[in-house]
């Protein structure tokens, strides 16, 4: 990253570096751009909660914490990884993407059996399949996924 070849009006060093995108925010944005994973474009900022389909792999056992394994709520902590091996996109007959698996760094919402108590697990990495529920429609739209298989 270099200083851009543009006129930057005199101001405080912090303000001038910010205008040149050479501050921490600009560095982060550039790294995410290079990685092709600008999750802000996906609408998935840390702290966002989304409901996804079945979680089929986790960095630590999650089954005991999540009695409802077909539709659990994830609190999104880290980045989605659409271009790595942990993410798969399957194309329909017309070339549209209709299924996706993603690797996410998240906290899982859990309930304690037999009571109304609930909480969040510690941070873990999970692989999950994005489903078609209403809570996921915005995420699927951002990812360029069909809303339902019938839309193919």
């Amino acid at each position, binding site marked *: 990253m270099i200083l851009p070849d543009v006129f930057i009006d005199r101001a405080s060093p912090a303000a001038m570096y910010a205008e040149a995108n050479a501050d921490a925010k600009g*560095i*982060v944005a550039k790294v995410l751009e*290079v*990685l092709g994973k600008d999750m802000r474009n996906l609408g998935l900022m840390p702290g966002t909660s989304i409901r996804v389909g079945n979680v089929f792999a986790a960095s630590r056992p999650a089954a005991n914490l999540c009695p409802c394994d077909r539709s659990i709520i994830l609190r999104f902590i880290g980045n989605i990884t659409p271009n790595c091996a942990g993410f798969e996109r399957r194309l329909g007959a017309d070339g549209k993407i209709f299924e996706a698996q993603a690797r996410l760094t998240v906290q899982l919402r859990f309930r304690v059996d037999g009571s109304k108590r609930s909480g969040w697990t510690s941070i873990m990495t999970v692989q999950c399949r994005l489903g078609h529920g209403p809570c996921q429609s915005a995420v699927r739209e951002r990812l360029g996924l069909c809303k339902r298989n019938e839309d193919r």
Partner: protein
Amino acid sequence: MIATAAAIDDRPSAVRYPRSDGTGVPSPEIGIPLAIGKCRVVREGTSVALLSLGGRLQECCRAADELAAYGFSNTVADARFAKPLDVDPRLAARTPPRPIEGGSIGGFGAIVQTLTEHGELDQGLIFAA
């Protein structure tokens, strides 16, 4: 840097002094000359490497903190020298190395890019300057 400049007797040397506030660090009682051409690894991670030359190191550390919140493990290094360039294997093992400088096109990033001629970055890495 003063001790380093004073220790250099066989060639010219200069000290570039920042005009604005700096981040305070403890100073040794007696200055110790730096090893010429050696970078300083500030933190080590596994997925992203930020290579800073000049006054952007603290911003790189702040950026690394934010990237860590996104799930990226970061290496941050203070390059210290544009030439000779330190080919630290800890940096070569990271992806993607990102040179950060306050210079211009053809500057430090271009120097780092010369590593591609010798294959130091040929490990499936993404390089961006």
